[in-house]
């Protein structure tokens, strides 16, 4: 034992020690928790202040149901495509012989996963808008008019624009997992007579599984909550959940506060579950990445 018992470290935390945390906790309560709590309450409160489920029942109406369907479809599809393509690209990046090139490509992913919103949407209008660079190139050299089959202002365009920020995010998620696949495991497997296929089936994929499921969940939430990209491309014309929420917010008078609350709570539930499960997967994945 030390000569002088230090005052700080070895004492137990007492309730008094929680007091300096109050400003922070209060801040989170006022700005984050209370607004969401009142949203929850509002979603169950009718016009007379009585308890009701009518706002949730309204979610079956075509515009809300369509928004949820489109949002889930867009997020799910770009999550699946992002995970598949990101895993392949991440694998090849890890196998690049040149360390510097490897770092450069990873840095590019770091930057591009943050390019989203209005400038990204505009960049896609530049290349794939009705007079975009690629649109014109296709027309001139391949005599192929991509409009109106494809349009950057519709679902097909949204997929392309969303993938732009989904893909590098997945690459960043999968690279540490792939780097965690030790060369010795592969050697040991082949030394014991395992084929390459068996190696992936019983060693490779199980080790990558948490990163892949985690990636699916995180990418889904990432796309579901996005607003600015879709807004810049489609304004409010294409029904998505976040756009619909934004539309309810426009103007000083609320169009339908109860419906907005119900939609908000469902969104929160969907994203909360995705992020929560992602956290579990990420924790599990860290086991292999010391």
């Amino acid at each position, binding site marked *: 034992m030390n000569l002088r018992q230090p005052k700080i470290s070895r004492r137990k935390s007492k309730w008094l020690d929680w007091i300096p*945390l109050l400003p922070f906790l209060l801040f989170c309560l006022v700005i984050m928790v209370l607004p969401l709590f009142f949203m929850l309450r*509002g979603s169950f409160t009718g016009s007379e202040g009585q308890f009701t489920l009518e706002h949730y029942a309204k979610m079956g109406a075509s515009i809300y149901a369509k928004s949820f369907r489109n949002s889930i479809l867009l997020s799910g599809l770009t999550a699946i495509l992002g995970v598949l393509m990101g895993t392949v690209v991440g694998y090849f990046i890890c196998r690049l012989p040149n360390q510097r090139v490897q770092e450069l490509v990873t840095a590019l992913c770091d930057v591009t996963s943050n390019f989203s919103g209005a400038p990204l949407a505009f960049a896609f209008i530049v290349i794939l808008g009705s007079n975009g660079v690629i649109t014109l190139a296709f027309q001139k050299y391949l005599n192929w008019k991509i409009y109106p089959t494809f349009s950057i202002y519709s679902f097909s365009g949204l997929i392309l624009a969303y993938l732009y920020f989904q893909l590098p995010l997945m690459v960043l998620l999968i690279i540490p997992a792939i780097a965690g696949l030790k060369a010795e495991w592969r050697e040991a497997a082949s030394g014991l007579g395992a084929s390459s296929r068996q190696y992936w089936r019983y060693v490779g994929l199980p080790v990558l599984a948490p990163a892949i499921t985690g990636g699916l969940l995180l990418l889904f*939430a990432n796309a579901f909550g996005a*607003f600015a990209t879709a807004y810049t491309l489609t304004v409010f014309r294409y029904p998505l959940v976040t756009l619909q929420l934004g539309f309810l917010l426009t103007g000083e008078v609320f169009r339908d506060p109860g419906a907005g609350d119900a939609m908000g709570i469902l969104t929160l539930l969907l994203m909360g579950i995705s*992020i929560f499960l992602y956290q579990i997967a990420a924790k599990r994945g860290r086991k292999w990445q010391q």
Partner: protein
Amino acid sequence: MKKGSAFSGLAIGAFLFYMLLPILATYAFSIATRWDRSILPEGLTFEWYKVAFNDKWFTIVFKNSLVLSISTVIASVLVIVPTAYWVQLRVPKARSLLDLISTLPFAIPGVLLALGLIRLYARPPLMLARTPAMLVAAYVIFTMPFMYRPVANSLEAVDIRTLTEAAQSLGSSWGRTFREVILPNILPGILSGGLLVFATIFGEFTIATFLVGARYKTFPMQLVYFTRRDGRIASAYSVISFSIAWISSLILLWVATWGAKRTSHGSLHRKKDRPKGAVGD
């Protein structure tokens, strides 16, 4: 083997093409005289930048976004850093609570946060929701994971208990211990977090539009306005936006390497500092 490497080259090439083309095309578009009827730009010009800079709104929105980003960074440091330090030092029990709170914002889309704040605080007698101050408060919540994670990690990386004890047994006051002993040790974490927050807020469109809207126009709002009015000026705005994101990321990488050297942890370890979560918008 040969076939494999050809395929891998193709895959990485396609990936780079997809990642770089929209950005490079926007840069080119912003200095092209006309580029909507031919494959290559018809000529080069800086006219669109001149038009953009000469617009009186340019200075206003640039300044507004700068003020918002810097205020958010400062507020975020003030709210989060002392709390994270105190929890690490005295209330280890609160760690999991703080971890939970700091990941919650990943599950709250910006438009939802704006909706909640307006519904609660935009009615009399409070009428606070539509002020820039409320916007900064919302931004501190929105970017909390970006600030909290790197700061918490760097607090864990150095033995702050021993440092605090050592400083105090030498007679240093709380304030002085925090300023002169703890702060320099966790500076790389604070800088990483601050840069991420800065870059995120400078490009943030959604919450700003719904909370304050035209009362306090920001750079991204003006960008969106020009995407519908004049694509060439929008391209100049986009280029500036992209450039700020590039520069912040480069400084961030540099800070991460510097921090890794200082705390003698491998750079791979440091890279995990980067909080991964919902970043798309």
